[in-house]
């Protein structure tokens, strides 16, 4: 039976979520493997595990529970070891590294911030800032919307202006929140947000961070800010010391 791994923590973690529902249908119970001063939060791996919503949620819930009580190093979804002995073997082999990370992240949580433009508000902004855009829009309007070429020309310029605004606002969000965070990690770009950035925040100053978010909401009213936290420090665990740079791709290929 292979072993699904949720997180690594200190064996002195005050409330390891033993017995909680893990991934799988029916859910596999969460177990704890200890090795020296370290512990791995695991369960049996279900057959045919896939990134289904239910399993992603189970993974997140186990981490949320464990992370609320003490420091954990969250694993990326879907990490499966051949057996328990492999897991404890890794803990033993890389104990110094994991202990260093646990010390570095102790008492800290992650807040992930994503933002998108409120379309009408950002269009107002770019129009307000550009006499050229206003003139073009006005001339199109006067001629009943303008020709196809007129519309493309206006739309292209507006799209460029909005895109420039996205970069500007992404930097603005970071500038507003970075001073109240211990570390910043910029996430991948995608459709759906103009900025995706995680902040490592000391539990003791989380209030300040939340207050800074509220300030940013007021001063950047043309943005919709989505904030999630406190979370386990997903974005602040480093890759292991012995891993080659391409380890992710290699592991994925091996899984297929």
């Amino acid at each position, binding site marked *: 039976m292979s072993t699904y791994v949720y997180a690594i923590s200190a064996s002195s973690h005050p409330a390891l979520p033993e017995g909680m529902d893990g991934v799988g249908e029916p859910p596999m119970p969460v177990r704890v493997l200890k090795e020296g001063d370290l512990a791995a939060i695991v369960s049996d791996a279900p057959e045919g595990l896939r990134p289904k919503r239910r399993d992603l949620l189970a993974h997140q819930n186990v981490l949320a529970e464990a992370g609320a009580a003490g420091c954990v190093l969250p694993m990326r979804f879907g990490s499966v070891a051949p057996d328990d002995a492999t897991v404890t073997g890794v803990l033993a082999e890389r104990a110094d590294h994991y202990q260093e990370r646990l010390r570095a992240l102790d008492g800290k949580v992650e807040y992930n911030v994503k933002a998108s433009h409120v379309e009408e508000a950002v269009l107002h902004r770019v129009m307000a800032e550009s006499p050229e855009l206003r003139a073009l829009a006005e001339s199109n309007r006067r001629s009943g919307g303008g020709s196809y070429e007129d519309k493309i020309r206006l739309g292209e310029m507006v799209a460029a202006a*909005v895109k420039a605004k996205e970069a500007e606002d992404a930097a603005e969000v970071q500038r507003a929140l970075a001073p109240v965070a211990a570390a910043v990690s910029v996430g991948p770009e995608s459709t759906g947000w103009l900025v995706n950035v995680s902040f490592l925040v000391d539990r003791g100053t989380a209030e300040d961070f939340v207050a800074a978010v509220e300030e940013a909401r007021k001063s950047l009213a043309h943005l919709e800010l989505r904030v999630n936290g406190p979370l386990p420090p997903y974005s602040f665990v480093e890759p292991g010391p012995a891993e080659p740079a391409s380890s992710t791709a290699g592991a994925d290929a091996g899984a297929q």
Partner: protein
Amino acid sequence: MTVVPAQQTGGGGSSGLYDVLELVLDRGLVIDAFVRVSLVGIEILKIDVRVVVASVDTYLRFAEACNRLDLEAGPHKSPGLPDMVGGITESGARGKSKGALSGAAETISDAFKQAREEGESEPRRPRKATAARRKEEQE
């Protein structure tokens, strides 16, 4: 939309859930001695896609939106139109990459929808054209 900042998103179907699951899939510790489950269909998400996609669809939509926009209303009221137009000619060479990115677009919520559908053991629906979905999302 208002989100309570100090919130633990643990359930429900909000966009906040997707925002957290993106972290679960994309961040966190990877150990080379372990194997990761195949994320076929989800790894595609990592393709770097800009938010404003340079496409004729987008241009037409923005042009329409600007035509409808009432610049004299609302909190973002703009200054009046200048008397004279001209002198600003910096935009000619922009946007030559029309459509270059649009084929690559696969949003994370698409994948989660797909994942959810699979989770409910439904047959996978054919995906809508990404341009149409993007349009829906932006509106």
